[in-house]
């Protein structure tokens, strides 16, 4: 079992004809992901290594029954690509694109509130359910199928920790790279809720970093609504305090966003907080009793 992506995923790729889009599409297909379509405006009718390309998402969905989109469209047009995917009725949109203006994402965020479409990202490494489907740029070969769920703000930390898990024989149900942009799609709380309901997940790893209050709010959620064991890692204990001009940020969150404050909040919610990425795998093994 898995969350978000799996055996039922029928993937279309927006921006499939760009260099990055083509490379990762083919890599995901080689991993076993069912890639059914690509979309690049003006390039409908072509194909990328046998994957049919359409001008619009709606046409691609009508022709192929795609239910998930992965976006590699450049930052100026990526927000529109998300809206187009949502209007075409896709279940899931995974936006890899980095550098989308926050104003555009705030509008997308508001629009998606009334939509059935779930957004992951932007500026994220994507979602992988090992052995079933890879929607994004996480290297599939470092993952292994299993029963640990994983949600992370950072991309390379996912790679690092998944690698350590796989090395000691602990497989993963699904790894979700939620991305680090200020305004993003699903966060820790939504991912934790999905994993809580997934019979294929026994434990969830959460990795956060300094800034914002996502981890503090996740801790609240864990306290009230999560029964499965959680292991966490927070990066940035030694990070220099960021240059911050106004006070408004701190007023909004009521937190200074430090790694120590986040680790403390999670520990208070009964979460095992590792001090190094290597310790994460060991804590997971300990909590699973393996």
């Amino acid at each position: 079992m898995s969350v978000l992506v799996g055996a039922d995923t029928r993937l279309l790729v927006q921006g499939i004809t760009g260099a990055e889009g083509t490379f990762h599409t083919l890599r995901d297909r080689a991993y076993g992901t069912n890639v059914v379509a690509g979309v690049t405006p003006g390039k409908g009718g072509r194909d990328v290594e046998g994957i049919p390309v359409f001008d619009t998402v709606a046409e691609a969905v009508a022709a192929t029954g795609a239910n998930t989109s992965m976006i590699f469209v450049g930052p100026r047009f990526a927000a529109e690509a998300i809206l187009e995917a949502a209007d075409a009725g896709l279940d899931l949109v995974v936006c890899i694109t980095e550098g989308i203006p926050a104003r555009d994402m705030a509008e997308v965020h508001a629009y998606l509130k009334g939509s059935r479409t779930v957004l992951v990202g932007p500026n994220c490494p994507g979602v992988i359910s090992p052995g079933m489907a890879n929607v994004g740029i996480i290297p599939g070969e470092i993952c292994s199928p299993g029963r640990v769920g994983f949600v992370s703000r950072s991309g390379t930390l996912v790679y690092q920790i998944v690698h350590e898990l796989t090395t000691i024989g602990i497989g993963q149900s699904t790894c979700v790279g939620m991305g680090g942009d200020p305004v993003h799609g699903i966060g820790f709380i939504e991912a934790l809720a999905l994993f809580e309901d997934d019979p294929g997940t026994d434990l969830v790893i959460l990795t956060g970093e300094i800034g914002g209050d996502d981890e503090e709010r996740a801790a609240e959620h864990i306290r009230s609504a999560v029964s499965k064991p959680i292991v966490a890692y927070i990066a940035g204990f030694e990070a220099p305090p960021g240059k911050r001009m106004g006070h408004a940020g701190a007023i909004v969150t009521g937190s200074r966003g430090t790694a120590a404050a986040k680790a403390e909040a999670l520990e208070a919610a009964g979460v095992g907080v590792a001090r190094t990425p290597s310790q994460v795998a060991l804590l997971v093994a300990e909590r699973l009793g393996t």
Partner: protein
Amino acid sequence: MDLYEHMGKDLFRAQGIATPEGRVCFTPEEAAEATAAFGGRSVVKVQVQAGGRGKGGGVVLVDAPERAADEAARLLRDGFAGHVVDRVLVEEQLPIAREFYTSIVLDRSAGDYLALMTAEGGIDIETLARERPEAIRRVHVDPMLGMRPYHVRTLVGTLPVDARDEATAVVLNLFDLLRERDATLVEVNPLVQLEDGRVLALDAKVTIDDNALVRQPDLAALQDQFPIDPVEKRAKDAGLQYVKLDGEVGIIGNGAGLVMSTLDVVAQAGARAANFLDVGGGASADTMATSLEVILSDPAVRCVFVNIFGGITRCDVVAKGVLEALGRLEASVPIVLRLDGTNAEEGRRIIADAAHPRIVSVATMDAAAAEAARLAGVAA
């Protein structure tokens, strides 16, 4: 990108928000002239990308042109809170009756805009938020619907009645500014009412979304005005995220999360990082070479720790880049190299075959951090 106060005030005035009259001064003489022009009294305000200026002696009331020159000379010479200072803003002194506070910020938790206002401005707003949150009015603004009249009525509701109309205009103009100029923060502390009843922005803090600078070319051009350390400039020009720190172990990694984590692991090994350097995804041999050059140019660095987990980035490319850099420049300190992920075995083989005397290849992140600390001579 955090703007200087005077830049923020330029944006304010262009949007119809009143500010005191002021002049940007680059020399003590200019500060004296400006003060004379304002009738011999002025406020000298240091221009830096940081807050806490009032408490730190960065905002000074003066009552003579010579005094303005003295204060400007002091700030331009000494800098402010570790920041290089190349200019001050000299403003007219005004008879202030009341001080308020207002701001609008992109709220990352809610994914919308949050507007704040209180009649109790000019003080430590964070303390007020903690101790008497009810004194601050706050409204969430839907990015699609924009700032509506009822939002504004709520915000200005604690202000004196005769200040509300002008404060309303200020808030609406601030919201337009935020949207049109891709700001993620606009803050006015204090927003003042003068004795004659007028409402003015006495301060301006504006942060522009870096991702939006491509469509705000006039604001992007302002970046050149901020002083930047030559090493940081070199890194920035090469597309690297580099921040100088004050430790002794130079750090290179890929991905902000992994680099932050590397800083932490090095600290746990008893050493301190000399910098934060993220080469990003898909680093080329040339990127690696530039990164090493940047780090080795820091005389405080006693050892370099290169921590790469290959995803898009390929470890064989990283290995070649490190060797290429060492062919171009003399490494006076040891380099601990940890390669894992995509093409790691090939990368390690390239390093092993080269057998460079300065490179120590270590398989795991924790062991590599311990080795880096040992080689830096600061831990067992």
